């Protein structure tokens, strides 16, 4: 693990590992006892309104999170090739194709694949890929497909978009009532939303602590510790975990302890991590004292559900996620992060898997540079598929970029 030598692991990581291991073990058991107890198992997208599913005691597993896990376990390539042999193009999102590969050939997949679903639930607030991916899953497993269609917002949220999402939520509720035999309990949803907000609020605070100079966390910390906010949002465990993490990060700030040995450059990261080579890649920065103090991706899960009618608030929260917004919105987000976190530069991962995230980056980069005067670098790779990671050219670009920042 020579690559990780400079990486100062947080103590909470041990607890995180336990939590995630337990979650996957539970998911597996769920496959066995979930159905008789009318607690179906759903595969859901990262931006799906999981609070609503939890209100029906549906257990959710996250193929996207599993996609990241496959990549860090070096399994993605084999899984993608499996999907490609079945006709899926290598140009498609590698979370999706590796997931399909794991469905087609579980024995080469980490943990022998995810436990089979009773239903699949996609929300297209992150991309159009999830519609096609979940259609494929529904066909393969012959299970119900539920899609929550959250219209792309070219500007601000509109009344008719909100009403449309709300109508679909109501429909989802009546479908879930039939599927689980349980009645919808708005009080229960309110409680779950509160738990979501608790975890989200803590995650926000943790991210906010990185405004400190030096920053207590670096990009990889944010990426590693985001797992519970994705897979356990709306549970007590997630809220408890982030309380623990916050205490630790706060202590680092009080001790003025840096995530790196010495923080010289502060950067903002845009897009999903390059899981396949995460430590190798981030080390190119950390060995020169460049710290990723914040990012746009893990911040995607720091949107609280507003008080008021829980269904209406959920409709707004899930439609207004940043990937469902215009380039202007996204540019402003990065500009604000640069200002708030006093960053010296930003790095955009042009992620060939994720078109909605990546295709607008150049326009955003120019705008951010114009408004902040801070330079931005684009690095082309893929979040999960190692074939798209060209180490030498990337290293050269990173070095040249950091040199200009150190001048």
């Amino acid at each position, binding site marked *: 693990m020579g690559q990780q030598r400079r990486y100062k692991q947080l103590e909470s990581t041990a607890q995180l590992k336990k939590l995630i291991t337990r979650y996957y073990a539970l998911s597996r058991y769920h496959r066995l006892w979930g159905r008789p107890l009318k607690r179906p198992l759903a595969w859901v997208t990262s931006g799906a309104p999981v609070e609503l599913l939890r209100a029906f005691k549906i257990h959710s597993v996250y193929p996207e999170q599993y996609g990241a896990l496959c990549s860090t376990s070096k399994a993605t390539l084999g899984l993608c090739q499996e999907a490609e042999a079945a*006709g899926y193009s290598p140009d498609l999102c590698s979370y999706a194709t590796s997931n399909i590969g794991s469905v087609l050939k579980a024995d080469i997949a980490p943990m022998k694949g995810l436990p089979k679903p009773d239903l699949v639930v996609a929300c297209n607030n992150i991309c159009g890929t999830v519609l*096609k991916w979940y259609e494929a899953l529904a066909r393969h497993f012959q299970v119900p497909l539920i899609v929550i*269609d959250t219209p792309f917002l070219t500007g601000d949220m509109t009344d008719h978009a909100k009403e*449309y999402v709300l109508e*679909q939520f109501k*429909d989802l509720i009546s479908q879930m009532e039939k599927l689980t035999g349980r009645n919808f309990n708005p009080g229960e949803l309110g409680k779950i939303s509160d738990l979501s907000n608790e975890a989200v609020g803590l995650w926000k605070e943790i991210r906010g602590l990185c405004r400190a100079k030096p920053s207590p966390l670096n990009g990889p910390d944010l990426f590693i510790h985001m797992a519970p906010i994705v897979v356990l949002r709306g549970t007590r465990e997630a809220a408890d975990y982030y309380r623990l993490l916050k205490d630790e990060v706060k202590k680092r700030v009080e001790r003025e302890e840096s995530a790196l040995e010495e923080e010289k450059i502060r950067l903002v990261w845009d897009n999903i991590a390059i899981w396949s080579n995460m430590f190798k890649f981030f080390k190119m920065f950390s060995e020169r004292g460049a710290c990723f103090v914040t990012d746009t991706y893990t911040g995607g899960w720091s949107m609280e559900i507003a008080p008021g009618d829980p269904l209406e608030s959920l409709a707004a929260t899930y439609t207004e996620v940043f990937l469902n917004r215009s380039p202007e919105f996204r540019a402003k987000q990065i500009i604000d992060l640069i200002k708030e976190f006093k960053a010296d530069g930003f790095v955009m991962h042009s992620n060939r898997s994720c078109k909605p995230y990546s295709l607008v980056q*150049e*326009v955003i980069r120019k705008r951010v540079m114009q408004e902040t005067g801070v330079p931005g670098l684009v690095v082309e790779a893929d979040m999960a598929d190692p074939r798209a990671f060209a180490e030498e050219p990337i290293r050269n670009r990173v070095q040249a970029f950091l040199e200009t920042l150190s001048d």
Partner: protein
Amino acid sequence: MLNMDQKFKGIDQIDLLIDEAGLNGDKRRERYPDRKFYGFFCSYLPEELVLAAGMQPLRLFPSSLQGTPAELPAYCCSLAKGTLSLAKPGTYDDLAGYGFVHTCDTMQCLGGIWKDIVSQDKTYMIVPPVMLGAPGADKYFRIEAENLLFALGQLNKSNPGNSEVAAALKLCRQVRQLAGELDQLRPMLPSQLVSALLRAGQVMPREEYVSALQNALPVLKEKAEEAGARKKLLVTGAVLENDSFFSMVEELGGRVVADDTCTGYRHFIEPPIKEETENLMQTLINRYIEMPPCPCRNRGLDTRLNYLESLARRRGAAAAIILIRKYCDPHAWDAVPLAKGLRDAGIQVLVMELEGAGVGGQERTRLQAFIESL
């Protein structure tokens, strides 16, 4: 029997339509100096509303000579790259505006980029529902359409109301009916001819198109003859900016008897509408909800497959060709279940990935082998 006058007129009009299709709107300013054109990309843009606001819908196509604009990465489809590289030097500056439809992730991004570097004020994106059968989808879509109409009116300083919308709907129905007649003749006409005649209807003023096609159809009917030994094919895919694929099919002994491309008959199809509603806008929108869906939308898991299968059967197509533009995610995704479903139904399938609409030696070899194997 047509008299000589009708015949010559018909032939002239066919020439005109082929010419227009070859130009893809390039000579719009000289040919139609009094018309205002409004650029669009996708068949889910309600053309009726553009017409109601006093403009002519012009489908924007990439050209074969195109660069890669710096704003887009290499892993983006050539439709987006090509149109953006045409827009940057001002090729479209005469257009009254640009109408985007939210379809795929690429179009979502292109719309945003267009606003940023081509025109902030003249660019508009309508966001139809993805789940066409979802509760509330029809109302949501109707309001999106009303907002589009309002924006178009402001753009063209017109104030389109019910009567303008009704007139535009009538014109579009006329176009669609004529296109439907042409599509019926497809098994008996050269594939590239039908493809060109249909594309012309997306790049020239619609009244002129109606009149040209009206005059052309009787001659086409006379010329129509059975495909003979030609291999009957169904073609499905997205946008095709020229007819080279269809010509190649003919050269290799095939005939496209059924077409489901965005720029082919799917653009014009008039699905049986349940009933006219009292709300004109809802009636208009219902067509877009009911038409055979493209891969970016969902109206049930197997709707698209079932439609293609029955289309192939009705037209007696023995095989299907699924065309995918490189880096086009929605069509690449659908290719897998379509190929499987059609094969299971006894229809042979060839999946072909193309850089753009142009085809070359490599495609010829594959297509030839496929057609010969039928």
